């Protein structure tokens, strides 16, 4: 079994070849999809558990306390214990709610995150779906989660859930624009929407360095907009409106609530991994053009460690925002997007196009 930690292409091709050799094409395809599906489910579950634990530890670190440290060594099993608790809670059925839509909403939210994870390049060759419109696919698929949010609010038969869901929906749809435009800036620089091409093109330097000023502006805008997209951090008025009215997931209990909660963390992971791929080089090590010895040392570290390291660093920054800043009011939030971020973004795209035409990038 050829297992090269630096290049998974040989491993995946070996699996592919052995399946197609031993079974009929139809069954080979079905088995292949099952293997990938199970692998992603496991990955999803492990990442979800890890991120919830990490959030609690990072939050505690910011607040001068320790965080969970009793359940298991260093509190590692805390999330699993919480999961058991949620599984055993009673699923309270709502009397006059639309039962089908009420039950469907959390699944929509989870499925869209699943679809988006499939397209992320984890390492060289470890890439489930490699469309030639990779970024466009991810943006399209993650936009569908708005439907889940709105359905959850509407089908709860609760005036306040509906208001919360509407606010949340308005927020997500507004910030989609900023996310899309800042990614377009990089597509202009890279010349392609295919994710593996984008990563390969950063072999001699990451885009945030290559595209200097417009890339840095695009990254900052992307970070702000992506935090707002996932309803996190200083933009969580729709959920923390449990100050006043409750959010869209108020009528959900037990495992359905766990789905919403988990989906928020996986969304954060997806957003951070897109940022890592598009701006910070994905699984490419840190190369400085011309310094061969340095580049060889950097190459020694396996690519998937680079990828996860960058992603978790960006996740840490997103968590840092949440625990430091107060919340924005809903009208201030929308003003920020429509009056400030959108014009800057449009100007930035033009600037990047101009720079690419003139060849003033590295």
């Amino acid at each position, binding site marked *: 079994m050829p297992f090269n930690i630096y290049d998974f292409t040989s491993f995946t091709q070996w699996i592919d070849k052995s399946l197609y050799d031993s079974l009929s094409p139809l069954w080979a395809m079905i088995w292949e999809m099952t293997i990938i599906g199970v692998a992603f489910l496991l990955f999803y579950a492990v990442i979800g558990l890890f991120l919830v634990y990490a959030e609690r530890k990072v939050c505690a670190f910011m*607040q001068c*306390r320790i965080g969970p440290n009793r359940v298991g060594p260093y509190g590692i099993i805390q999330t699993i214990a919480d999961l058991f608790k949620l599984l055993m809670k009673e699923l309270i059925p709502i009397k006059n709610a639309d039962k089908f839509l009420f039950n469907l909403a959390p699944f929509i939210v989870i499925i869209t995150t699943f679809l988006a994870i499939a397209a992320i390049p984890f390492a060289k060759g470890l890439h489930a779906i490699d469309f030639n419109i990779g970024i466009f696919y991810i943006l399209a698929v993650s936009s569908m989660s708005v439907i889940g949010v709105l359905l959850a609010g509407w089908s709860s038969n609760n005036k306040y859930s509906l208001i919360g869901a509407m606010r949340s929906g308005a927020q997500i749809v507004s910030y989609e624009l900023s996310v899309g435009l800042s990614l377009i800036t990089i597509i202009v620089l890279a010349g392609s929407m295919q994710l593996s091409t984008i990563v390969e093109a950063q072999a001699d330097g990451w885009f945030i360095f290559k595209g200097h000023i417009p890339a840095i502006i695009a990254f900052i805008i992307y970070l702000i907009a992506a935090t707002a997209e996932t309803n996190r951090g*200083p933009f969580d008025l729709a959920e923390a409106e449990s100050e*006043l009215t409750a959010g869209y997931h108020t009528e959900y209990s037990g495992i359905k609530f766990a789905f919403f909660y988990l989906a928020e963390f996986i969304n954060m992971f997806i957003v951070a991994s897109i940022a890592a791929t598009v701006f910070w080089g994905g699984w490419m090590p840190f190369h400085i053009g011309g310094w061969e010895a340095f580049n060889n040392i950097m190459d020694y570290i396996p690519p998937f460690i680079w990828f996860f390291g960058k992603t978790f660093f960006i996740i840490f920054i997103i968590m840092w925002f949440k*625990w430091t800043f*107060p919340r924005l009011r809903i009208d201030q939030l929308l003003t920020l997007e429509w009056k400030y971020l959108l014009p800057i973004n449009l100007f930035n795209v033009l600037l990047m196009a101009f720079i690419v035409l003139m060849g003033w990038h590295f």
Partner: protein
Amino acid sequence: MTEENKNSGLDKEEEYIINIGPQHPSTHGVLRLVVSLKGEIVKSVEPHCGYIHRGIEKMCEKLTYPQIIHLTDRLDYLSAHINNEAVCLCVEKALEIEVPERVKYIRAILSELTRIQSHELWWCSFGMDMGATTCYFYGLRDREKVLDIFEETCGGRMIVSYNTPGGLMNDIHPNFQKRVKEFLKHFRKKLPEYDQLLTGNVIMQERTKNIGIISREDAISYGVTGPSGRGSGFSCDVRKHHPYGIYDKVDFVEPLYKTGDTFSRYKVRMDEMWESMKIIEQLIDNIPEGDYCAKMKPVIKLPEGEYYQRVEAARGELGVYINSRGDKYPYRLKLRSPNLSNLSALNVLASGFKIADLIAIGGSLDYVIPDIDR
């Protein structure tokens, strides 16, 4: 005429009433606010009080004066020491007793420490209501140090009952001066951290500047005193205008801001913490030797008449009115609560602003419900 009628009919349909009920994370106590909204804008706020009315004034009519002290702790429990001092000063004024200098110094130091820890808790919960949860932990970390000092000297952390008519219950602990000086040194470094975390933050300033404005005339008319009144330019510090204890010999500034919005009330409280530290520094090294209590009769009977004492509690002017008929119980004891007057201005402050601002305004008024209801 018909257009007016049409508009008022429309208003009635669009207005709806919501309850920020007695149990709520942001009202810091049991208070029911009935808010009438038109869309996002608050048209009127009506507080319903009385959920924690314990009848303290009526109970005091059958308690002796040293026993009353223990009930005053539970009014505005964050300025417990100052409440105790108010009743003691009233009784001492009525009996015309001069307390020893040592008592005056210690009372002033403990009052200023109480003010600091009360403002720290206000800062914690103000940040948390706005969404910056980390503020809660930073403020409480420093408040614990003050509470440790109280525990060592007075025996209790929040409910102290250390004052008694004539002086103090017991002398201070030998470690008192050392610990207070350590605390001052520690806090001088930490208070700028509070500014870095919250005061300069753009989001916080956007949510508090020009929100909840009350003019100086309205503040005087509604009786809004303390830091909330000073944020509107109403100079109402009892320690300056009607000094009691040692406050006429101490040098400090009364922070006044003109705008009257939430941000200026915030700034007043931050400045007051610096001023309190200044007062403590002037007093801590010079505590004179002497008795910790003047000689009092075993049963305290006030001469017939009416007596009124005003002190500056952490939230405003606390007044104690005692009407005595010559026996050991007061005939009538009335406590003028600063929080009730501050709350009466909530309607004026919040009308015309958004519902999300109501939480920020309530936080800046900093009311403690047991003081409203007594």
